[in-house]
Each structure stands twice: as C-alpha cells, then as structure tokens.
C-alpha cells in the first residue's frame, strides 16, 4: 500500500497532534518531542508508507515514536556530565519558562509526575490513558505481551498513587 499525498495529509492531520502530545508527555521536553514527531512522519512518508497498511499507520507511528524517544533518552544520558552541565544551563528553569512553553499548570504538574516512572511504564500508561488504546493494542505497539502491559499499567498506577492529586 502506497500513500499518496492526500492520504498522507489525512494521516498527518489526524495523528500528528496526538503524537506530539504523547512524545512531550513522555520526554517532558517539547523541542525533542516535536523533532521526533517530525522524524516519524518523515520516515513514514519517505520509505515506510509502502510497507505499512493504511489502518496500521497510527500504531506504526507510535511504535517508531517510542523507539526514537528511547534513543533520545539514551543519547542524552551518554552526552556526559560536562556537556550535561552546559545543557543544564540552558534548560534550567527560568522565570520566562512558562511563557516559552505555554504550558498550563495542570499539564506541567502531570508531565512532571510522569517523569518519575520508568520509561516502559510511562509509555504504557500514556498509551492507555491518553490514547485510550486497549491492552492488546498497547502490546502490539510496544512489542510486549498483554500480560506485561497489564502488570506495567498496574505498577505505574501504584507508583504514582502518592503523587496523584485526588
């Protein structure tokens, strides 16, 4: 199945905003999130759309997004402490942070809270609560068993129990 421009535009319009939301929630960083979302669609358009079925596009995109986001996390860890410090200078919270990010308080708190979770639990919980995917769909996207999805969702919820504002 090859996607023509019109079909691609439709997929993009439908999925791009939610992919950005997923990535920003997952990474806690808007720039990296948007960069990765673009990379996902770029790959999708340039070489993968001919091996992805139309009705699987959404799942393919989320799978690639999660993988690229994990790479991003690993790479940023690898950048080392010296560079890490240089980067920190630029990323340290500043008074104008709120304006740069246009993030409301509820969003900021929720994203901050999610960063406490291990990456696999964070991805599973977001796909469940934000994307409303079923356990089986999540298992397919993340390439794990449904049993693991079930356990990870439970562990994620339990881990955040004390941080949730009831």
């Amino acid at each position, binding site marked *: 199945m090859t996607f023509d421009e019109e079909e691609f535009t439709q997929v993009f319009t439908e999925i791009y905003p939610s992919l950005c939301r997923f990535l920003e929630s997952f990474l806690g960083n808007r720039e990296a999130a948007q960069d990765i979302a673009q990379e996902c669609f*770029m790959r999708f*358009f340039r070489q993968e759309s001919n091996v992805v079925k139309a009705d*699987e596009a959404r*799942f393919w995109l989320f799978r690639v997004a999660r993988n690229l986001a994990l790479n991003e996390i690993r790479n940023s860890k690898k950048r080392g402490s010296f560079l890490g410090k240089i*980067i920190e200078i630029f990323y340290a919270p500043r008074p104008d942070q709120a304006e740069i990010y246009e993030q409301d308080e509820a969003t900021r708190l929720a994203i901050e809270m999610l960063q406490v979770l291990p990456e696999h639990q964070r991805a599973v919980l977001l796909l469940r*609560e934000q994307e409303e995917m079923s356990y089986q769909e999540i298992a397919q996207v993340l390439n794990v*068993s449904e049993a693991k999805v079930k356990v990870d969702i*439970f562990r994620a919820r339990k881990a955040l129990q004390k941080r949730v*504002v009831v």
Partner: protein
Amino acid sequence: MVMDCNYLEKISLLVDDRLSPFETEEVKNHLAVCAQCRAAETNFLALRRQIKAIQIPRDRAAERKVLSEILRSGKSKPAGTTGKLFYLRPALAAALLIVVAFIGILIYNRPPQKSWDVARLEGTPRIAEKGINENGRLKIGEWLETDQSSRVQIAVADIGQVEVEPETRIRLVETRSAEHRLELERGSINARINAPPRLFFVNTPSATVIDYGCAYSLNVDEEGGSVLHVTEGWVSLALNGRESLVPASAYAKSRRGFGPGTPYFEDASGEFTDALTKFDFENGGATAIDVILAESRQRDALSLWYLLERATESDRARVFDRLTRRRGFSERRDFRPRNRTIFPDRANERGAHRTHRDANFRRKSFNYGRRGYERKSSFERGDLRPGDGRFYASRKLEYGSLESSSDFAF
C-alpha cells in the same frame, strides 16, 4: 507498613473495564468493605483525569509548515539534506544553537559521513565503473561491483560491516543517522550490524531486508529472488505490508511477484522446506500443508505461526491444532461476557479517528465453519516478539464464550 490488599491489581483492571461481569461483581462487593481498595479506585481515576488534562497548545501554522516540508521533500529525495525541521521560538533557538555548537565542537568533531569506506579483500572490485586499489569510498547513488574473483568489505557508517561476495552488484541508496540503506541487485552479502532495530536496510528486487541488530547473509539470484539466512539476532523480510521476521538459525526466501515467504529453521527437514516453497511460491495449497504439518517439529512453530495467517480458511484449524499440540503449550481459559468484542467499540467517540481506532492493529481473526458445536471458531494471532521468540495465539469458540489463548515460544 500497611500490607497491600490482594484485590489491588484487580482494581486496576476494573478501572480499565477488563473484568468479566462475574469478577466485576466480586470486586464491587469487595470495594464495599475495603477502604484501601476504594481509595485506590478513586486514586487511579484521578490519575486518569490528570493525564487526560495534559494539553499541548497546537500551532496550526507550524503544523502546516511541517506537513508541506515533508511533502515537498518527496519520497525519492536524494539523501544529504535530511530535511530535519525545526521551528523554535527565537530565544530557545538561540540557546539551542549554542548548545549544538558546543556539542559539535566537543564531540562530533568530524565530517558527516555521506560515503562509506570500502576495503578490498580480493581481486579488482569496481566502484562507479572504476577499479579500486586497497581502499575506496562508496558514495550515495554509486554502484559497487565484484567479478568472479573479487571481494570487498564495506563499513556501514559506524554501525557495522557488509562483506560483498564475488559476482555481486550493490548500490548505496541512503546514509544518515536514522537510516542506512543498500540496494542489492544480484549476488551475495554478509552483514553484521550492531545498532538499534530498523536503522539498516537492504532493498532487493523482491523484498526489503530490515535489520533488528544482527548478523545475516543474503543472496539475490538472477530472477530477483532472495534467500536470507540469519546467524545472529533478528531480521525482517518485508514487502507491501507482508513481513516475515526471521530469528537466528533460520531462513526466509522471497520471490518476485510473491514477496516474503515463510521463515523456517535451518535444521528443518528437506520435505518440510520443499513443501513450504511449494506453499509460498507455487500455489501448493492444502497438499503442501499436509506435508508441512506431518513434518513439523516443536521448533517449527515459527513457520506454523505464519501459516496461521497465510493458510486458507479451511486449513487454519489444523495448523492451529498442530501448533498447540506440543510440549510447552500452555492454555489459559478466559470467560468473557457474551457478545462483547475484545476491542470496545469506539465508533462514536471521535469521528476523525475512527479508521485508525477501529483498526485492530495486527490482530488477525479468521473464521472457519465446522459442523457440530464448533460452528464458528476464530483464531487470533499476536505479533512475534523479536528477542525471545514468544508470541500469542488464541482460538475462540462461539458456543458459550470460551476462549483459550496461549503464549508460545520456540
């Protein structure tokens, strides 16, 4: 320390509507008497609300710009300009620029690789029609050719090597951090890649070989058919939505006009592999399935898992039976409420997402008819999991609502 109530995990399932009516009843009765579980339910639902409250403001102008850039970049755009798009607010953009400059100077102080190193192993290999000495460079778009007495080794950026055997014609299609791609027109290569999945690709006339972190050899014959033999890790052979994931010690073939065939282990019997070839590429049908089932061993679950989808409806039941009647098969029985699909119907939810939300990603259901109780059975198959070779398959019978499902590994 307060002990966790045994029901806590079920509260999580309750919140996701994953319990049978019977269990729901049971858990609700428990909730009436257990404050800890009541608190957990409230808490899990509050967490859901907090996550749903996450709102990322949309910048539609920027979205349109991203879209048009991708469309403009085109499918066949030559590599080199990767078309990475940024749209940043000026203040942050400036800050990032400085960071990038620092990183660039300190770490990535080397020219971007738009060509690969080629080392001659034997004979006189040629790049772009010119013979090379000990070393050469293969640029994007250039063909590398070996005659019957020459061999070379190519460095795949910094993620691995490809050995090119005699009488081979191969081209570098793309190289950038997110994708490295060769085109093998004919001949043989041996690849060893040490990288995350889906970074290294080889196009052949009948399929695309996608690396999952592995070592493999690949041969393309005069007709454009490929034979993939994986020696380490996992590799996928894909074309037009049809994909065969191949683990170590296994083979998969592809032929023009058919795409990827069924993977099989290298120690499978000759009768077994011949029958697979007949089934995949020569319309062998039920006769081929007879031989495949008779010859299959426990390990050949790998091949049977593919046949579960690729066989015709009337053959699926016996493929499933063969797949599940073996050691290591575990059965799990789930009672499900009648008339309820596994995927809740979300058709009314948001019209725009309907196609994708209802898509039942890679969940294949098959029906076949039979007399008696099992008037209708449906089979489901989950993905193969690269790494440990586990997968999920289940059979659902429509009398009552009993489902047996299994995790297999080979």
